[in-house]
């Protein structure tokens, strides 16, 4: 309790600091304008110098975290999505349900789902709406992507034990320029993006804006076992070759920011708007067994953003960084077509009461007729205050605040929400860390502590009858809980270019409301005795390189990880004998329980080889075992599945990338880059015991690309062929992904336009 009080005070202090500071610096700006400009010039020089030292990528990667940084510079000129870029990097598996716009799940060395945070500049990307996601944010808007496995740094704290993907958007406005790109390719896929930066050198007033538009029919062919034709006797004919006809995707989004950069009072101060909307047809359910027609969702999101960074804030060596977002987002789902379809686009038939008639569904494609809308109002803010106590010793405090207000509407039956609980869920995370560079700066250590509090304010409605008169009575309840986590990282520079890197973490994840209180209508029973999940993670690895011997450069990276989950929260079918109401007993009845232990262990590695700055080749792979760790079975005997690989998850992935640069092809001063990528995913089974029918076979995906930069350096044209061999590929069991596709793209840079 004392601790809680202490932290509440800290939060209060911090927030007063944050808000009281906005005015102060402004007053000083005018006076120090001149001096400031000089400082910028100095800073720019300094930057130029530091480039020769270590790149941002190298810096982050040798801090001690299990992290790798993906640079997007090359990819932005090609026909690649951010997800494709991620999928090629070490230890990341992007499991997608189909073409552009389809559902995506990220798997970081065996950890997936809600254990992984997806951030945009340190703020959960979901805050910006589901229409602004890694499917459609073009790589050209992105500076770099940081992929953390396991332990997270203080600028990405949250309830995540599996790691995080942090997309860092471009910030630099030092050069006034604009870029535009258009791409067109297979399956009627059109993608375009635009971006522009402007900075007035005199005043520091800056603008940056970017936008994108994507449209695709996703009309790819599928021909695997999962594509079927069902005749009027409901006999399944497979495999069947069909072209998708119900998978349109349209997305538009933009981000506009105005502010000041490199002024006396702010290194960056921006206020902006981030908006997006999309339309997505949902072509099938969890399998391709039946095509859906007319099931779609529309999402829209409007977010106001604020960003402030200052290195020497008030004091020298005191750095402040604030990033705050307030958003309103909505998700609309409609499913009202009541005929069943075949994959050839025709309505299925059935014999009904002896006559052959069109087959009707239960009302919609996935179930009963549905029209729903969900509105969310989200506030998400992160502030970080860092102070260099002494040379090589830095302490920082980080505060994260998140509040969500959600409203669900059933548009077909509005009355069903008459008694809906209004709830405001808010979360504060305070974290502190201490970074030190010791032993002649060879040893970097980082100790982190994290305190999380969750608070739920609920207003529940209830019908109360007094003297035969009904009334809705509202009751307010507040529940809260908190937990501690801690971790440490270390990086030791053994010899020149060789870093040994290790980290560990001990953290908790709280059960969600659904897990605690259940959802009777989908047969989930409540379990109020659920305890938080505990996770202890270890990572140990090294980075070596780049070793430079004349024209050859080579670097290595390897990391082993060991993750232990205790009291893991898992959905479990309820033993029939425990169900009070006998009639409810059904195989589908489940509840969330704290299931003994889980364990994942494995390793990942990467080699990068560069020859003469022309050939750039890399090879990476990741192998992990998610192991079943329940030691005793229901009779107290040793569990016969103990120690086995948990089914239904890919556990071996590898990627090879080769890039070669040709100079002066066709024209002098032109540059032609050729790219070749092979992706490999090892086979896996979806149930225990590996029956043949449950096999998801191993996958080889070959992609080829060429980009050509014209001598003017303003125009880049590129061609990409994805899935070159037209292979039958699957990320998820029996959901076939697109075959061969060819895409063309033109990028144009308008430099120094003002």
């Amino acid at each position, binding site marked *: 309790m004392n601790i809680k009080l202490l932290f509440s005070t800290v939060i209060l202090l911090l927030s007063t600091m944050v808000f009281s500071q906005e005015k102060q610096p402004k007053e000083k700006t005018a006076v120090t304008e001149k001096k400031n400009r000089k400082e910028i010039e100095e800073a720019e020089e300094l930057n130029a110098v530091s480039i020769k030292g270590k790149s941002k990528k190298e810096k982050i990667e040798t801090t001690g975290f299990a992290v790798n940084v993906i640079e997007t510079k090359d990819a932005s000129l090609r026909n690649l999505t951010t997800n494709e870029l991620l999928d090629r990097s070490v230890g990341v598996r992007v499991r997608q349900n189909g073409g552009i716009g389809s559902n995506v799940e990220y798997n970081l060395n065996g950890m997936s789902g809600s254990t992984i945070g997806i951030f945009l500049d340190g703020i959960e990307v979901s805050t910006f709406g589901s229409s602004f996601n890694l499917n459609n944010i073009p790589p050209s808007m992105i500076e770099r992507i940081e992929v953390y496995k396991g332990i997270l740094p203080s600028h990405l704290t949250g309830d995540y034990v599996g790691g995080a993907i942090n997309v860092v958007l471009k910030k630099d406005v030092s050069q006034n320029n604009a870029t535009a790109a258009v791409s067109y390719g297979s399956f009627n896929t059109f993608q375009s993006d635009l971006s522009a930066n402007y900075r007035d050198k005199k005043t520091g007033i800056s603008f940056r804006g970017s936008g994108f538009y994507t449209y695709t029919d996703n009309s790819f062919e599928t021909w695997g076992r999962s594509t079927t034709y*069902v005749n009027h006797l*409901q*006999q*399944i004919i497979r495999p069947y070759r069909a072209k998708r006809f119900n998978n349109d995707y349209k997305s538009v989004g933009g981000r506009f920011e105005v502010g000041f950069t490199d002024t006396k009072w702010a290194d960056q101060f921006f206020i902006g708007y981030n908006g997006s909307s999309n339309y997505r047809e949902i072509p099938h359910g*969890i*399998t391709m*067994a*039946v095509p859906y027609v007319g099931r779609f969702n529309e999402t829209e999101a409007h977010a106001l953003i604020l960003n402030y960074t200052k290195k020497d804030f008030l004091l020298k060596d005191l750095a402040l960084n604030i990033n705050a977002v307030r958003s309103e987002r909505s998700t609309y789902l409609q499913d009202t077509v009541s005929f069943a379809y075949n994959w050839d686009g025709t309505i*299925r038939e*059935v*014999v009904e*009461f002896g006559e052959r008639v069109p*087959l009707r569904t*239960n009302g919609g494609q996935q179930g009963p007729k549905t029209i729903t809308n969900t509105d969310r109002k989200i506030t998400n803010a992160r502030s970080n205050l860092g102070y260099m106590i002494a040379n090589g010793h830095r302490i920082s405090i980080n505060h994260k605040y998140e509040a969500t207000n959600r409203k*669900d509407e059933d548009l077909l*039956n509005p009355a*069903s*929400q*008459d*008694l*809906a609980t209004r709830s405001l869920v808010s979360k504060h995370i305070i974290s502190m860390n201490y970074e030190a560079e010791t032993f002649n700066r060879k040893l970097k250590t980082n100790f982190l502590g994290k305190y999380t509090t969750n608070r739920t304010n609920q207003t529940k409605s209830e*019908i109360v009858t007094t003297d035969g008169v*009904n009334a*809705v009575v509202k009751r307010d309840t507040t529940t809260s809980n908190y937990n501690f986590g801690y971790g440490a990282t270390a990086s030791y520079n053994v010899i020149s270019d060789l870093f040994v890197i290790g980290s560990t973490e001990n953290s908790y994840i709280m059960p969600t409301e659904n897990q605690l*209180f*259940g*959802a*009777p*209508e989908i047969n989930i029973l409540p379990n109020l005795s659920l305890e938080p999940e505990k996770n202890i993670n270890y990572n140990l690895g090294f980075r*070596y390189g780049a070793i430079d*011997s004349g024209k050859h450069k080579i670097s*290595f990276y390897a990391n082993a990880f060991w993750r232990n989950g205790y009291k893991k929260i898992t959905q*479990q*079918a309820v033993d029939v*004998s425990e169900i009070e109401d006998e*009639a409810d*007993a*059904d*195989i589908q009845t489940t509840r969330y329980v704290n299931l003994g232990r889980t364990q994942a262990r494995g390793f990942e*590695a990467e*080699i990068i080889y560069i020859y003469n700055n022309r050939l750039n080749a890399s090879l990476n*792979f990741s*192998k992990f075992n998610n192991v079943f760790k329940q030691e005793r079975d*229901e*009779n107290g*005997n040793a569990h016969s599945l103990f120690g086995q*690989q*948990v*089914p*239904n998850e890919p556990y071996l992935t590898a990627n090879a990338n080769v890039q070669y640069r040709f100079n002066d092809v066709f024209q002098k001063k032109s540059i032609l880059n050729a790219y070749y990528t092979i992706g490999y995913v*090892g086979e896996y089974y*979806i*149930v*225990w*015991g590996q*029956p043949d*029918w*449950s096999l998801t076979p*191993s996958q080889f995906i070959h992609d080829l690309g060429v980009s050509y930069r014209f001598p003017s350096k303003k125009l880049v044209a590129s061609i990409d062929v994805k899935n070159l061999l037209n292979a039958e590929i699957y990320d998820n*069991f029996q959901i076939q992904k697109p075959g061969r596709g060819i895409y063309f793209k033109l990028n144009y840079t308008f430099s120094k336009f003002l």
Partner: protein
Amino acid sequence: MKKNLFKIALFSIATALTLGSCSNDDNNDSGDNSGNDGTRWISLTGSFPDANGTAGNGGTRAYAITPENAENPDYEVDLFKMEGDKYVNGFALKSSRTARVQASADGKFLYNIQYTGTEGGVFNKYSVSGAGKYEEVGFELNTATILGTSPRWVKAAEGIGVGVSFGEALDPYTGTAPNFVYRNPKGTIKIANIDLNNTAITNTGSINIDLGTELESQGYHVWRADVPVLNQAKTKLFIGLGVRRHDINGTVTTNPTSGAINGWDRTDERNLGTLTYVIDYPNLRNAKIISSNNTMIDNLGYRTMTQYVGTDGHIYQATATSGPDILRIDKTTNEYDQAYHFNLNTALSITGASIKAWRYVKDGIAVVLYTMEDTAGGYVALINLNDKTAVKLTTEIEEDAELSTTLRQFQNIGVIGDNVYLPLTPAGKDGNIYIVNTKTKTIKKGAKLKTASGSYYIGAY
């Protein structure tokens, strides 16, 4: 130094790639290939845990043995034996959750509709040729659009499968808060006739539920349809109904988390006998409800068939899987024979029996698997429906508490001639096939059944 390190790294990556991509050798079951040599194969099925370790919830495996094997106490079936990560004995029926298996009377074919999972609602037919030799034959059928992805279906007569599904219930209220008005949810039962020989859905139909104004205004409503059976003449289909009652003086119920309305208050007060829908076959018209005066417990199978056509042509219907009664539907009137009532409690002079699975053998003789309210374990009885008597047949594992779980999930009792085959294994413990000779009224222990954690045998066919 640099060169060495490079070599080591390269080697380790190459090794890992090679090892990781090695495929397992196929483990073919040994044995001859004589599929149709006239052997009466007895298929044993067993279920294993899901990915979270939940017992019996992950899928179903099958293994076929001869009646001689079944009777031999020295013979052992190890259906869940693993080598590495792979099951090596038997055959995995397609289903990521426990399969709903039926079989032809001669044991030559297994029929299954996958219950939920990636292909929930897909019907598969397998030919049986001994040991793990099962071969998919005929067409796969897509039943999901008609019956949903977790269909309730059984073999309603030899060669004929019938699937039923309750759905399209109305919201049990009208109006808005706070003055919601009760509305009977009614609903629809969809029916699909499955030709098991030619693997086709030859006719479908639906019943708009109508319990009559009187019952409906008292809050009675249907929540499930199950265990369809055909009469001897194959002209009438009998569908078991799950009935519940809303408290018409109550109000709406809500989800405890979201507050969204999810139903109407219920009451356990019931003054209504077992209900069964009778419908013409195969045209699926002329739906009519019949009601028993003898008991108020519903006739539903959790995973097993609960009603059979007797040698005498009448239909015998157990109030499984929670009651002790067996009711009779008359073959000439197609109505409940209100004068007939078999009660297992009375016949065995016990209390609190509930029939978990049963099988009519012939001439009024049947075998019942039951549990008791206050006593742990799972029990076997041989009953005579004609003189309403019963004999308890003792097994050495009957008092094992885990056996009640197994019996709850029990799917099928095997019958060949006068012999009844009961694979009995408490969850996660070894057991045996028990063979009941209905002529001599004896039970004996047959082949050993080995299990594994969270796995047990659920049927003989």
